[in-house]
């Protein structure tokens, strides 16, 4: 019996789970995939927006600004890196920039100002010299969106919450008091409240709940991820002037030391493909902005799907089903707003009245990257696997991979390991370490090596033994 069941393991669901657990609320999160953060939460810009962009009075405006204010502290509580690098909206239309600034002022964004060319060139020497002005928002930051989701779940688990993965919801029944959620494997969960924050799958879940169906549309955003050698080409997140559809194609350093360029914004289905058209669009946009950029240094192209419901987020109590909260259309600035959305859910359920208890803190996996000889020796003395390098591009040791497989929200897939400790995230993209990672997963979880998936069940990498070992039992080969 749970107080609250959260359907959907994205950053919003994880944040609700974590904030519930901090208050001692018995919470469960269910995710249909093999890991959390496999939808929009893994494939976005990783930016904590300042909040000047959204129309005043909207949920987006309110939740972005308050989410931004919480995020830095939240990340430090989660032992995650957060960098307040600031954002620049560059352009020559001073009127539009002033409009944005005024919007920011109304939304309650602090530390925004219009800067002129000289200052802009000082901040961003590689920026096209034709830009005369920029809106400078110092409170904009960067995080790893999937690590944030994972860390929130881990802290929640440490504090008594439950996370089910590979939980395909078959049916949801409701009696006068409780919800009964039944999985395809016939696991049954009961909960007093349910939150539907299933992202792109919102309506699918809503149908099972017999609750509100919203007209959702999808927009695909394609990206280039550039090699760490390009880190430093820009120092801030740089946007062009926004359009009604999106904030435009931006460039930003990532928290892990790469450079991210994108996204496009095309109406699409739910399949996150990249296209040559999309990539060409990014190319032509970004070379205008940063003429020096070298997109041949791309190590990965990817795309994410944003779910859109009109102009604003939908966060409301269901009118059809009591004790159900509908959360839909969390496109940008969803990541920035996630902690504020979680607080809003606490208010809607009344859990905000419960005091925050003394909660256990999660610890990030200690990386050997950037450590001194003395520090390394201390780590290796404790665990010799720290001296065994598996991923050479990102300098990831065997010890770190094993920890990713035994942490509170353990990885069960190659991509799960990649998201947690960055093995395979570098320029060779797992060319050298893929097999070692698969072997380590199989060994640690005591699973056959041919059952280890890239991401979801059904994405297994190795399909058969070429020469299966003959097992000899009682003198007979079987």
């Amino acid at each position, binding site marked *: 019996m749970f107080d609250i069941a959260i359907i959907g393991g994205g950053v919003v669901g994880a944040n609700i789970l974590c904030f519930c657990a901090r208050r001692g609320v018995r919470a469960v999160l269910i995710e249909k995939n093999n890991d959390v953060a496999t939808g929009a939460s893994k494939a976005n810009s990783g930016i904590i927006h300042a909040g000047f962009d959204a129309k005043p009075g909207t949920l987006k405006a309110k939740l972005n600004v308050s989410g931004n204010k919480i995020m830095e502290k939240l990340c430090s509580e989660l032992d995650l890196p957060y960098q307040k690098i600031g954002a620049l909206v560059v352009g020559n239309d001073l009127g539009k920039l002033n409009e944005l600034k005024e919007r920011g002022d109304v939304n309650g964004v602090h530390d925004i100002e219009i800067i002129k060319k000289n200052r802009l060139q000082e901040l961003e020497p590689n920026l096209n010299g034709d830009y005369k002005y920029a809106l400078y928002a110092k409170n904009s930051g960067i995080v790893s969106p999937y690590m944030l989701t994972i860390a929130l779940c881990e802290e929640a688990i440490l504090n008594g919450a439950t996370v089910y993965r590979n939980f395909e919801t078959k049916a949801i029944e409701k009696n006068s008091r409780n919800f009964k959620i039944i999985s395809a494997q016939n696991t049954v969960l009961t909960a007093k409240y349910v939150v539907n924050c299933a992202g792109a799958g919102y309506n699918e879940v809503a149908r099972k709940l017999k609750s509100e169906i919203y007209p959702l549309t999808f927009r695909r955003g394609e990206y280039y*991820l550039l090699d760490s*050698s390009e880190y430093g080409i820009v120092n801030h997140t740089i946007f062009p002037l926004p359009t009604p559809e999106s904030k435009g194609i931006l460039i930003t350093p990532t928290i892990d030391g790469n450079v991210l360029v994108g996204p496009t914004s095309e109406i699409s289905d739910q*399949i*996150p*493909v*990249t*296209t*040559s058209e999309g*990539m060409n669009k990014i190319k032509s946009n970004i070379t205008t902005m940063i003429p020096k950029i070298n997109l041949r240094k*791309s*190590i*990965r*192209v*990817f795309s994410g799907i944003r779910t859109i419901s009109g102009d604003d987020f939908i966060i409301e109590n269901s009118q059809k089903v009591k004790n159900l909260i509908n959360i839909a259309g969390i496109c940008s600035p969803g990541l920035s707003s996630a902690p504020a959305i979680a607080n809003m859910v606490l208010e809607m359920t009344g859990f905000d009245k419960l005091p925050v208890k003394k909660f256990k803190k999660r610890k990030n996996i200690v990386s*050997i990257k950037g450590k001194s*000889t003395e520090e*390394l*020796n201390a780590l*290796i*003395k404790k665990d*010799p*696997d720290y*001296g*065994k*390098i598996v991923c*050479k*591009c990102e*300098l990831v040791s065997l010890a770190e991979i094993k920890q990713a497989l035994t942490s509170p929200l353990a990885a069960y897939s190659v991509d799960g390991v990649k998201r947690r400790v960055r093995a395979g995230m570098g*320029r*060779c*993209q*797992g*060319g*050298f370490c*893929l*097999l070692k990672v698969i*072997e380590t997963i199989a060994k640690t979880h005591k699973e056959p*090596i*041919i059952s280890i*998936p*890239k*991401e*979801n*069940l*059904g*994405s*297994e*990498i*190795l*399909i*058969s*033994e*070429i*020469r299966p070992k003959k097992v000899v039992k009682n003198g007979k080969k079987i």
Partner: protein
Amino acid sequence: MAKRYDTVVIGGGPAGMAAAIEAKRCGAKVLLIERENQLGGILNQCIHNGFGLHYFKEELTGPEYAQRFIKLINWHQLDYYTNTFVTKINDNSIELISPLGAEKIYTKTIVLATGARERTAGAIGLHGTRPAGVYTAGQVQKMINYDGKLPCKHPIILGSGDVGLIMARRLSLEGAKVQMVLELANKPGGLMRNIQQCLNDFNIPLYTSTTVKEVVGTDKIEGIYAISVDDKMQEIPNTLKYYPCDALILSVGLIPETDVLPELELHPRTGGAIVNEYRETSIPNIFSCGNALHVHDLVDNVSKEAELTGRFAALKAKNQLAYGKQYNIICGNGISYTMPSTYFATPGNLEILFRVNNKFIRHNIVAKVKDKVIAKKFVLCAISGTMQSISFDKGNLKGDITISMEAEDGK
């Protein structure tokens, strides 16, 4: 007490082993460092034959070829570390890490023999979805030859580089039906013998001027859309065709691996370090050889070049390397790059390795200083997939050398 060496060789593959052995023969105190748990490098997963025809005058498999050098390393009682990774290179020292701990080792010279990495889906901007089933040829080679596991039954191979061709044969031998090999260029990339032995002999079709437009499949690859391209490698409309497959294997080139030293000045053509005749990089006392320097097609050439490099590194450590006035080696007609790209006006032999940028039938390789021919060599057929060489005594040579491909007289 800190360990001190004359020469530290980073990378225990064919290049590193040959360089270390030769440096030791020249009297240097040598340490060889390998990140895997055994020496041999990529040779250990190349279980096909065809190695050593030039160097040993006999046909060996990759592991056999490696074993010859491992024996020599043991015979010379050469110091080597396995399971050891170099994290940093400083002025006169390196920092390394292994399960035994982190350590700093002092050395006078360093040889970078860190091999190459494969170009990936991200590097070539492969479009569509990103499911399981898209691998590099080297990854698949390791799965099959190292771990005895098969990743697919009906693969399509993109790129006709040698590794891809060899994997087409290897997969066929293990029961997979390789459906086709696609090549963006209008001619195959690999060695001619591999086209014959790995594709033709197994009835695997090769489609040139064709590439992958889109990968299809959410969790696991289901198929690809292939598209034809023209001579300028622009997509030809209305040539899109869908092929189902359970893997897409990429053999789209190798990139020299020089990560350990980001400060290194790189050659725009080879992707490896810019070096002088002694294979010494832009950073004094740091040498480079093997695929870390430029991508080779035959390991025999790697061994030869690495021996040269090992010797120079050892001589440098003993202050016995003579630098003369430096002249350029210029790429003339039909030459893509030369190795080295400069030489010293010192006595001795000079061997210039190079690749051509087109197909040349019955041509002369000509080395000239101004208009004077200093060496000439006839080749029946030269293609970009095969490294060429020309070698001569430098004598009292002075001035820039131009290497070019010239048609046979009057033909």
